[in-house]
Structures are given as C-alpha cells and as structure tokens.
C-alpha cells in the first residue's frame, strides 16, 4: 500500500441542508509510516530547525528596554486616555458627561463647576480610573467635541494601584475655544485654576480600597462616591 500524502486534498461538493457546498476533503492517513519515510520526515524537520539556528537574522526577539529609542507604536494604539490639548488648553467645552455615561464600567468621573469668570458650566476635574478602564474607546466616540484621545504611552506601571486613579485635566476652567479668544495672557491665566494629578477627591488623598490604607491625609469629600463597594458606584 502506497503511503498517502497528507496534503492530497480532494475538492468535491457535498449536500448540507439542501445546499451544495464546495468542500475540501482531507485524505485518510495510511496505516503506518514506514521506517524510512518516518526517519526522512524527522530529518526534514531537523533541517528546518537547523535552518533557523544558523541564520541569526531570523531572530524575532525585540529587546524591549534597550530598544526604547527605536520602538514605535502605531498612532491608534490605545494605552492611556488623555484630554486633547491645544496649546495647553483642553477642549472639554461643556462637561456634559457623555463620556461618563458611555463608559461601560464607570472608569470616568467628570466633576463640573460653574465658572466664576466665564459664567458657564466648565470642567473642574476629569478623573480617570486607569485601574478599571478596559480601553474600549467608547468615551472618545461619545465625545461631541473631540476632547478625548487615546495615546500609545504604554509604560504605566506603578507600585500602588491607588496611583492609577488620577485627574486628567491640568486646570479647571473653560476650554480652548474660549481661552484662545482671550488675548490678554494675564486674564487668561486667571481663568485657569491649576489642578494636580492627585488631590481633591482623587485617591492619593485617600481613595478607599479594601485592605489598602490611604496614602496619607484625610479622604476627600467625594472618595465614597468613587468607591464602587461603599457608594454602590452612585455619585452623590
């Protein structure tokens, strides 16, 4: 009995549910491989691995921390959420919370305030929980102002997971569209109240995680609201 080549695939048509379906039928393998053909097949696979051994150019390893300088991530790579900045100003025009509502797991909390100078609702804090974010891009698609973006900055490791909850905006105040109309730099600065990455209701100041003591200081006023267990995820 001649040995069947496993690549002898037959093309036919078969019936399924009254339809004729073109199929590729795999052959039945012959009962036993002879000693010689078995040995030959083994030697062939050994030749393949040897082929890779003697060609260092085929090495696929990329040495990560060393290749930082040349490492390029695609533009669209989603690693962190950021507010789009135009010359130091964000674009969040109304603090409308559409992003917050579109988020499937409550990773975004937008705190708005009534602007003292502008007299309009403006962004106070844009708090992002990187620890629970799944980078699904829903917030970006939901934003009517194009104020949000995903950046390919992937080195986000921290030693304390409370540090993964932070404020994205650098200042509280009106968006770029308003600020850029203001010619006077002094007046413009007045409208921008600086916001730190951590502070206020944000965790570094005491976000509660089970079995993790706060980093220091008293919990912020909104800490309970951010906590999924104690506050049931419902902001006050």
């Amino acid at each position, binding site marked *: 009995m001649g040995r069947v080549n496993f690549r002898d695939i037959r093309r036919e048509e078969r019936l*399924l*549910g009254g339809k004729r379906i073109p199929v590729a039928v795999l052959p039945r393998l012959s009962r036993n491989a002879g000693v010689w053909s078995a040995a030959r097949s083994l030697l062939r696979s050994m030749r393949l691995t040897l082929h890779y051994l003697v060609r260092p150019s085929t090495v696929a390893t990329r040495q990560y921390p060393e290749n930082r300088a040349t490492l390029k991530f695609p533009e669209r790579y989603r690693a962190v959420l950021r507010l789009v900045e135009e010359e130091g100003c964000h674009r969040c025009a109304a603090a409308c919370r559409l992003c*917050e*509502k579109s988020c499937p797991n*409550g990773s975004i909390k937008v705190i708005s305030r009534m602007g003292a100078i502008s007299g309009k609702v403006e962004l106070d804090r844009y708090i992002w929980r990187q620890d629970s974010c799944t980078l699904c891009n829903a917030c970006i698609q939901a934003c009517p102002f194009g104020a949000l973006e995903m950046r390919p900055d992937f080195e986000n490791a921290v030693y304390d997971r409370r540090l993964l909850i932070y404020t994205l905006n650098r200042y509280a105040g009106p968006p770029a569209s308003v600020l850029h109309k203001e010619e006077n730099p002094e007046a413009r600065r007045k409208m921008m109240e600086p916001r730190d990455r951590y502070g206020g209701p944000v965790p570094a100041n005491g976000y509660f995680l089970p079995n993790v003591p706060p980093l220091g200081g008293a919990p912020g006023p909104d800490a309970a609201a951010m906590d*999924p267990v104690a506050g*049931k*995820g*419902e*902001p006050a």
Partner: protein
Amino acid sequence: MDAEALLEVLIASEPAARKRDKTNRTAIQAPVENLLPLMKRLRQDERLAFDLLLDHTAIDWLAEGRFELVYNLYSTIHGHSLMVFTSVPRDNPLAPTVSEIWPTAHWQEREVFDLFGVLYDDHPDLRRLFLDDDWKGNPLRKDYQDDSMLARPQ
C-alpha cells in the same frame, strides 16, 4: 422546508403548539407538558430531522412569574431552523430533560439549572456547572441579590 410549511407540519402534529411572534426565526410555543413528545418528534420525524440542538437557555419573566425556556434547533439535513419556547412557573420550575434526544442538552440544562434554578426531570447528572455546589441563589434570576453586586453607573 420553508418557514410556513414547517409551521404547518408542526401545528398539525402538535395541536397545543402555536406560532410565536416577535422573533427573527421560525418559532413555536408549546406547553411544557407536551414538550417531550414534541421534541422527540422534531428529532425523529424525517420531514423535520432537527439533529443539532444549538442552544438552550431560559428567560426570567419576573413580572409574569414564569421562566421561559428556549430551544434553538437546526437541521443539517434540511437546512431549516426552529426556536421552541415553553414556559414553566417560577415557583415550581420543573421541565423535562431533552438530554436523551440531544446529549448536548445535558450541559446546557445544567447551565440553566445553575444560573436560573430550573429543575430538569430525569436529568442524569443535575449539578451546578459553573458555581460552587454550595452557592446560594441563582445569579441570572432577575431578583438575585448578593453583597458584591455593583449598580449600573448612571
């Protein structure tokens, strides 16, 4: 067989069954008492020959106090498909097992038992599938509560 002919054959053979609307596939509704003979016929009748039970699951209609069981069938011989619906009361959720007809139902029924608490008569190995044997409650019921459940962020 096209949808109408299929329904005709079915309703002729099972007077208690009727067409179910508001679905995107051919569907019938049958009382739970008649389910087992109906299912047997669906499998064995040569005109029907549903040889693949794709899916079996349940819906908890809390307000109406019943579980609706769904069987999703396909026939590789005729190429037609059918959804079979049946209802069991929430306070006595007992349904016959179809695992003798389609062995794949064995597991699918165990999943429904685990997550909804529907009991299957004569099931060969009725055990929880995913959850621990000592788990309290059936999570996919609409009135299920436990301490670590999160509310939907508004």
